[in-house]
């Protein structure tokens, strides 16, 4: 469990982020912090603005107003690595080429290459073209790219998308293992149950706005204060109560 701001340094924070696509407001006045060593979950249903928020946070998309700040003096590029969802980068290249490219071009963590490949079960896929992979296989390769990146904070959009139940549980353990070695994770998850199992702290997003932020205990108390006694304490009930 993550304590308050005085115990863990703030690695990154967003203040008042807003982004519109024409007349549609994708995110509105979004603020949150990410502390070192924690797994923060950005939780929300499809269409809540999670990917837009992620891309604005990572600098892949411009935002209309607000600020994003990082504790590292060198800023965003040194601090955060964003792993998008649903992409098939360099589709003509093999998995091995892509991972080696990550190590070489991004200055990735060579020392954990073998562990990442083994943990994510990528050995049988190393000679396969990215374009020929299934959705779940591509997701594992993208996770590998993120974990091999040199940045301390890895923002992963939908880390469990395309994975079956067993694979999802394995990935949860892998992510926890990396956090234990000093990484910080910012995960965008639309499956509430998955988020409840892995995340230390949550940012609840609904219709483009942050409706709540905090640990499971804090959110439970907040939900109880709004709706009274909850039927049960699972995260799905808490989410429904707060959104």
């Amino acid at each position, binding site marked *: 469990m993550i304590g308050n701001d005085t115990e863990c340094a703030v690695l990154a924070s967003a203040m008042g982020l807003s982004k519109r696509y024409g007349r549609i407001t994708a995110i509105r006045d979004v603020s949150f912090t990410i502390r070192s060593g924690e797994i923060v979950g950005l939780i929300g249903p499809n269409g809540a603005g999670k990917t837009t928020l992620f*891309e604005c946070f990572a*600098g*892949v998309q*411009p935002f209309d107003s607000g600020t994003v700040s990082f504790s590292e003096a060198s800023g965003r590029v040194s601090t955060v690595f*964003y792993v*998008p969802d649903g992409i098939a*980068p360099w589709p*003509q290249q093999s998995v091995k*080429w892509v991972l080696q490219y990550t190590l070489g071009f*991004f200055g990735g963590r060579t020392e954990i290459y073998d562990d990442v490949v083994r943990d994510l079960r990528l050995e049988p896929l190393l000679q396969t073209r990215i374009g020929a992979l299934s959705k779940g296989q591509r997701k594992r390769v993208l996770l590998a790219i993120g974990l091999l990146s040199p940045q301390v904070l890895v923002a992963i959009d939908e880390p469990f998308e395309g994975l079956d139940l067993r694979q999802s549980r394995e990935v949860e353990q892998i992510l926890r293992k990396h956090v234990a070695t000093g990484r910080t994770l910012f995960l965008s998850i639309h499956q509430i149950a998955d988020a409840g199992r892995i995340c230390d702290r949550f940012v609840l997003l609904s219709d483009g706005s942050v409706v709540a932020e905090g640990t499971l205990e804090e959110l439970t108390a907040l939900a109880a204060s709004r709706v009274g006694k909850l039927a049960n304490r699972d995260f799905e009930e808490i989410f429904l109560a707060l959104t």
Partner: protein
Amino acid sequence: MSSRAWWLFLLLMGPLVGVSFISAVQTYAEASGLGGTAAGVGEAFSPLVGVWAPTFSACEIGAAFLLPFVAIRLVAGDRQSGALKLEMQHRMSAFARIAAKVLVLFLGWLIALAAPLAGVLLWRSYGGSVYVPELTTVVFGHILNAGLTIALACAAASIVEHPSTAAIITLAVTVGTWILSFVAAVHGGVWESAVAYTPTAVVAQFQHGLVRLDVVLIASALIVTGLLLGGIWIRIGISVRRRIYESLALGFVVVAAVFGCTFANASWDTSENRMNSFSRADEQALREIHGPLQIEAHLAPEDPRRTDLERRAISKLRRVMPKLQVQYVSVTSIGLFEQSNPHYGEIWYRLNGHSSMNRATTPEAVLETIYSVAGVTPPAEDPADEFRGHPLAVPPKHAAAFFYVIWPALVAASGLYFQRRSA
């Protein structure tokens, strides 16, 4: 090496060049006396006009219709696949990334030039003459043309989201330059000046062995502009408004630079037969004529005599007499309906208060009139200056086998090898 588009482009270059080369050499051989025709026709033949220009014209086709798609695929492919979202998280600037891709494309183009250069080797094996300066000029012109294509394609691929749209834009610009040429032919004037800097005109100048400093500078400026535009617009993390402002600022700078470059007068005729220049003796005599020479030609833009006058005399005069002022006077674009005008067809030469009129458009007649107006004795012809030509009555042996069989087989085999190695 993993780009299938490039391998396909490379594969097609062989037959494209082959058709042009074989046809050019066959025609050259027949004009030189092959098959018992009169050999005298080939005496003034220059490989520059008879072989290099048609052979390398395949490069122009490749640059216009094949190379853009390779470039667009390389630049837009990362955006389509999502790789751009990963690459832009690296410290490398967008401009450096675009420059790296352009460098790769340039290298790919240089490799593709192996096809026409193989034609050069074949020509040598036949016993043909190779004048290195003019051949180098032709190659340089096509490299410059490829640079323009690559820059345009990179800019288009960076600005729009979908590669198909970028391809349409690139082809539209190419066709637009052809339309500009047509408009210039009909209306003349400022259009004629502008069309000199289109890719087609640029290539044509170099294919005649002429290197113009203003053309090189302007083409270089446009290439850099395309790359900078590509770098500006590939930064998808920057707001569209800011990218527009940066593009406008770049546009102002480029317009000013291009305008400045138009004042660069220097040019070099690298052709062995000096087809872009008067004889050395005439050029020396013309340089010694002081005072601005004014030529007023009453010829319509589409009148063939005007084209003849411009290409065979005026363009050579401009290189020697920078202060030359030429004015074309006509009411219509064709001239057909001006025949009743008694002054139509007159060409007036004015210098230091003297004037003379001549209707002939040949270089000899133009020079004779200028010397008359200037009061200068025409220089004696130097026999050493006369270009005797390099006739070659040899058919294009083995060329078909090389360009239609060996080249495609080599490229296909190499492509498969590199594809398997990268996998």
